[in-house]
């Protein structure tokens, strides 16, 4: 890892060496006035950042996976990198896969009903033939497998810890192909929650929500910020109630992403437009299995 540090609290290189030397080896410190450039091999990069931050301002940081570099160096496998960076999205719904591909994702693993195995993820990551990969999935349950796959594949994988397809759209809307890998990753992380959304599902059992809302078996319910916020036996009434509850003055576009199990209902958008004439409505096929609809408010 490398990190330029600007500080008035450290007098010389030896003092800095004393403070961070025990975190690892191969320590190199170069300094000019109150600026120090530090190179160190460590298993605890975050601890080093935390330690040096006490004494001054970190101008920028760079962490490389040395174990992976070493493994790649020893390996007989030859990878012909075709790209410096790629965006890899892992989603359940075919509709979301198409949307993300169109928004610039380099490859999509569309897993449908069954969550992807580590092998599938490694294959997907290696198929990109990119030196650096930004990987993000629509389900937090995939995260562990993705982290393991990242350690097994050749590329430097930066995992964006997303847990829904709307965050993936948000990421793709915020990044540019012209960004370098670090900027892409930081932008992705900073824009994960840009789009307000809720999910609409049908209950398969009796549920008592955190706020006391009773959801009966067969009822439709809305999940907003990971909590059940509304329920209703009528899907259309629930959609109306949700929009009334969540839409604010800042919103003028409501988008419905239909799940795989939703039949075409041409009347629904018309009904909503009549009910909320000041809002624009758009409808797309998401193909997700967990929710009947994802609804976004922009």
């Amino acid at each position, binding site marked *: 890892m490398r990190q330029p540090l600007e500080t008035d609290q450290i007098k010389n290189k030896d003092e800095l060496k004393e403070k961070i030397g025990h975190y690892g080896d191969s320590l190199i410190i170069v300094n000019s006035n109150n600026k120090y450039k530090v190179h160190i091999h460590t298993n605890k990069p975050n601890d080093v950042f935390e330690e040096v931050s006490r004494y001054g301002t970190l101008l920028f940081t760079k962490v490389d996976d040395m174990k992976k570099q070493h493994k790649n160096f020893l390996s007989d496998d030859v990878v012909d990198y075709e790209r410096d960076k790629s965006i890899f999205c892992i989603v359940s719904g075919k509709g979301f896969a*198409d*949307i993300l591909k*169109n*928004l*610039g994702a380099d490859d999509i693993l569309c897993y449908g009903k069954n969550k992807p195995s580590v092998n599938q993820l490694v294959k997907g990551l290696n198929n990109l033939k990119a030196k650096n990969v930004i990987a993000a999935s629509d389900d937090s349950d995939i995260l562990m497998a993705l982290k393991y796959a990242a350690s097994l594949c050749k590329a430097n994988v930066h995992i964006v810890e997303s847990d829904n397809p709307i965050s993936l*759209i948000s990421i793709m*809307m*915020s990044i*540019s*192909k*012209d960004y370098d890998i670090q900027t892409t990753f930081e932008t992705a992380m900073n824009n994960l929650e840009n789009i307000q959304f809720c999910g609409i599902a049908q209950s398969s059992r009796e549920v008592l929500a955190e706020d006391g809302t009773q959801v009966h078996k067969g009822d439709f319910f809305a999940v907003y910020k990971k909590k059940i916020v509304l329920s209703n036996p009528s899907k259309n009434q629930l959609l109306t109630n949700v929009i009334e509850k969540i839409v604010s003055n*800042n919103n*003028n*576009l409501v*988008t419905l992403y239909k799940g795989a199990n939703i039949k075409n209902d041409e009347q629904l958008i018309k009904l909503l437009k009549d009910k909320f004439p000041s809002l*624009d409505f*758009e409808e*797309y096929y998401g193909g997700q299995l967990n929710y009947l609809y994802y609804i976004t408010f*922009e």
Partner: protein
Amino acid sequence: MSRKIFIIVGDNLGLSRQQINYDALEIVKFPVFVGETEYRQSEEYSASWLVSKYENEKVVAKSSTLIHNEIAEIVERNRANYDLFIHVVMSSGLSAASFRVAENVKKQFENIVPIINVDTKQAINGVGNIVLGIIDLIKTQPDLSIEELEKACQQIVENTFSWFVFSDLEYLYRGGRIGKAQSLMGSVLHIIPLLGLMGDEKEGIILAQGKARTFRQINDMIINQIKAKMQEKSVTTIKRAITLQGYGDKNKEAIAEFMEKIKTLPCNEIIHGEGGLVDAVYCGPGAYGISILL
């Protein structure tokens, strides 16, 4: 004694002649083709005329390069009365041919009268902003040498930044002007692309600056990017902003909201540009945007 300078510019500058307070200037009209027929900007054949044709007749329009002889004729006609010509040319990254024509005219008059060709790295109101910036320069620093003027013009180019919102990128695409923004075309999801021409970028091509789902988001994005650019350049006040609008009634509300938002920017002068026929070829209905000179 101050130098007598004549400015030549194509009519893709997002300004009308009345908006430019400088006598020694001639605007050369780009040939515009709708189908096989050639048109030039006039009262009858204006931006709104073409936008209406786009909307009602689904025509395809293109523009051609400025004609060498027309520019040479302007120089020939005026060279007895002026010491120097400045030809302000649209970005060579967007039209290499236009810059080549300008260079050929310069060569033709080599040893007869000096000509500075300014590669603006801009189009539409960005070109207009650079023209007005150069006029300010001529008026405030009349004694600059040709070399100093050339250098100062380059600084104006590097400090001019433009953002465009086009409802439909097809018009840019058909005209071969889309550059790296092509990646924003053909999305399943309805997105509004934000495009830009940044004076500090070497290539002078249209770059994708972002994308959004609503005009409110895109308007905020422009304002934030302008503020970021000001911060990056350590500038507290915009010298001049020229807006781009008026291509039909499409996006009227979004444009009105944008015009309100730009009033919040610290800016010495805001000019509401009047785009011409050739600008409309690439903008299409409902386009709007802003160019700033820092």
